């Protein structure tokens, strides 16, 4: 009898808003922690949680702790909408963070707009609504990737690295965002003097990449650019190599990139990244390693960069939000944000009313170096103006 009373009391307690939660900055996060794309979104969620935990250990922001409430939307838009509703209405979040597949953006944006709570995109790909000159007032993006600038970067790198005329192969995964990115690259290639000779769109759950790779190889490209989820990027490359293709490959570095460079061990496999890789051994990397030592992480620390940057953004924003926090104050702080990424990114993240993305997008290029038997940087920060 006593136990059921206890359980009933616990139930009643959990259904009411817990009073002690009000004494913290509440940030709500909805991420695809599990589900089909978990490999790409779970690491940033883990690392932002790690960041907030060690932030609270350092005393929090303005003397108050930061409470990060994580909802798992499993990559489903309806769950993302439900998460957003719950985080706003029930948990009184003053800032929403999204780390999820692009199909979940719509519902979260709609909920954020309805409640006028700012929404930060922390992982995945930046939506077009954050770009200057007229970004949506509530949407902000700290993610490293962006459709247009990634393509420009890749094309520029290919042009610089080639002496002979370039025949470019393009690879996307057959999901709308990836296809849009590759279509953009295809349209911009002539401006760099590059001829696209083949474009492949590979369905998501393919057992065997060989048919697509052989089609690609048949067009005889000497460079291939791939932009999409990591599994497409790396498996296409491996399939091409198995078919005896000898060209060079460049692709966007997603979270698993650094570890995978060591697994693939091919000098012609280039990745460009907006985050500095761990091989650079910057002080901020040591900071991350120290923070990870105590916590039991499911994913390797090398996949933590985007989430850490999101954590930095959250910390800087909340620092400028006087107590008690409200969504309007957070929005004002975000519109005037300046974050020093301590070398993780090529430059600071600066936001204003006309730019919710950044002023410059920086990239570094890495590949495997067989002599050193380690991944190495090929090109230092290249800045691209964001107009």
């Amino acid at each position, binding site marked *: 009898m006593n136990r059921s009373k206890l359980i009933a009391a616990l139930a009643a307690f959990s259904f009411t808003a817990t009073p002690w939660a009000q004494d913290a900055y509440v940030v709500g996060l909805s991420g695809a922690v*599990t589900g*089909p794309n*978990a*490999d790409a979104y*779970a690491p940033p969620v883990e690392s932002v949680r790690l960041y907030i935990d060690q932030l609270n250990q350092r005393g929090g922001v303005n003397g108050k702790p930061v409470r990060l409430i994580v909802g798992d939307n499993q990559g489903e838009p309806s769950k993302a909408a439900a998460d957003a509703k719950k985080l706003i209405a029930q948990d009184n979040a003053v800032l929403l963070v999204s780390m999820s597949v692009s199909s979940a953006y719509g519902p979260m944006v709609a909920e954020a707009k309805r409640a006028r709570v700012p929404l930060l995109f922390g992982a995945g790909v930046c939506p077009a609504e954050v770009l200057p000159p007229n970004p949506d007032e509530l949407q902000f993006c700290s993610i490293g990737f962006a459709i247009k600038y990634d393509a420009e970067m890749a094309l520029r790198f290919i042009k610089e690295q080639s002496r002979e005329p370039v025949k470019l192969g393009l690879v996307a995964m*057959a999901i709308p965002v990836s296809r849009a990115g590759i279509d953009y690259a295809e349209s911009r290639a002539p401006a760099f003097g590059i001829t696209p000779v083949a474009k*492949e*769109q*590979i*369905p*998501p*759950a*393919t*057992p*065997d*990449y*060989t*048919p*697509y790779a*052989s*089609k690609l*190889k*048949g067009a005889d490209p000497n460079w291939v650019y791939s932009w999409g989820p990591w*599994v497409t990027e790396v*498996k296409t490359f*491996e*399939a091409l*190599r*198995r*078919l*005896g293709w000898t060209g060079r490959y460049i692709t966007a570095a997603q979270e*698993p990139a650094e570890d995978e460079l060591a*697994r693939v061990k091919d000098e012609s496999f280039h990745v460009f990244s907006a985050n500095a890789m761990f091989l650079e051994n910057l002080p901020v990397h040591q900071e991350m390693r120290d923070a990870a030592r105590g916590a039991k992480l*499911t*994913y390797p620390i090398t996949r933590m960069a985007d989430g850490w940057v999101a954590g930095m953004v959250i910390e800087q924003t909340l620092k400028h939000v006087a107590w008690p926090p409200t969504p309007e104050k957070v929005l004002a702080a975000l519109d005037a944000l300046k974050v020093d990424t301590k070398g993780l990114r090529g430059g600071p993240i600066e936001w204003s009313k006309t730019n919710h993305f950044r002023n410059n997008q920086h990239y570094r290029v890495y590949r495997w170096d067989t002599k050193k038997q380690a991944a190495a940087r090929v090109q230092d920060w290249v800045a691209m103006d964001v107009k």
Partner: protein
Amino acid sequence: MQLAVNIVVLAAIYALISCGYVLIYRVSRVLNLAHGELMLVGAYLLYSTASLLGGSPVTAVAMAAVLGLLVGVLVYVLLMRRMTGEMVLAAVLCTIALGVMLRGATVLIWSAQVRHPMEALGWSNPSLVLIGDARISLISAILIGATAVVYAALFGFLGFTRWGIRMRAAGQNPLLASQRGIQLHGVYALAWGLSTFTAGLAGMLISLDSGLDGTMTMIGLKAFPAALVGGLDSLAGALIGSAIIAIAEVLLIQFVNPLLSDVVPFFVLLVVLVIRPWGLFGSKEELDRV
């Protein structure tokens, strides 16, 4: 030439998976919709044994194969056994539920990270040169060989050994078979064990070739039309059906639109359902007039 090689590899993959569907359907008239998930479990078991026994890869593979067989028998004994005698509908729903459960369990045990059993085993996967400049990877070649061996073994088993004949008998007329003293539960358990063994084998080989993550279940699902096209209770049909689907898929990827590859097996399925629903070599089912 490369196209032909690609077709043969894909056909081998589908054939190896669909013989599992056929085995169970032929023997107990149950559609095992958890086949894709059982493939996944087999591949994950290989990853675990490879990580544990890093030093001796051959033992790891053998152990994983045996474990696959055991999992199949366990599934029958613990779960499907209670469904014998019930409506086939209930049994199929049970396999669906099993599939869902396995999918959740694999993520709980092994996490959603993409795994690479090849690395854990310490083997490498070079590409071999064939006629012309067609290439094939070593694992794909092994897969084709494995499919051939498995099919030959199954034909021999079902045609000539005692247990094989018992399985065929149980498939044709369970009541009569049990009256003649054939242990139905034993036969069904064996069918499930063999089916899961081939599924595990297929999963292992696919994951060795291209990494291991949850999307492998889609392949299992796409192989199902291959089994149906040939006739759900015919092994020879499964081979031919896989070949047809593989040809259609690779040619359409090459010449029409690569995105069709997901849908092609099901298009072929629908066409076959309209023209000859019981497949090319399946036993005739009755047709109602509409």
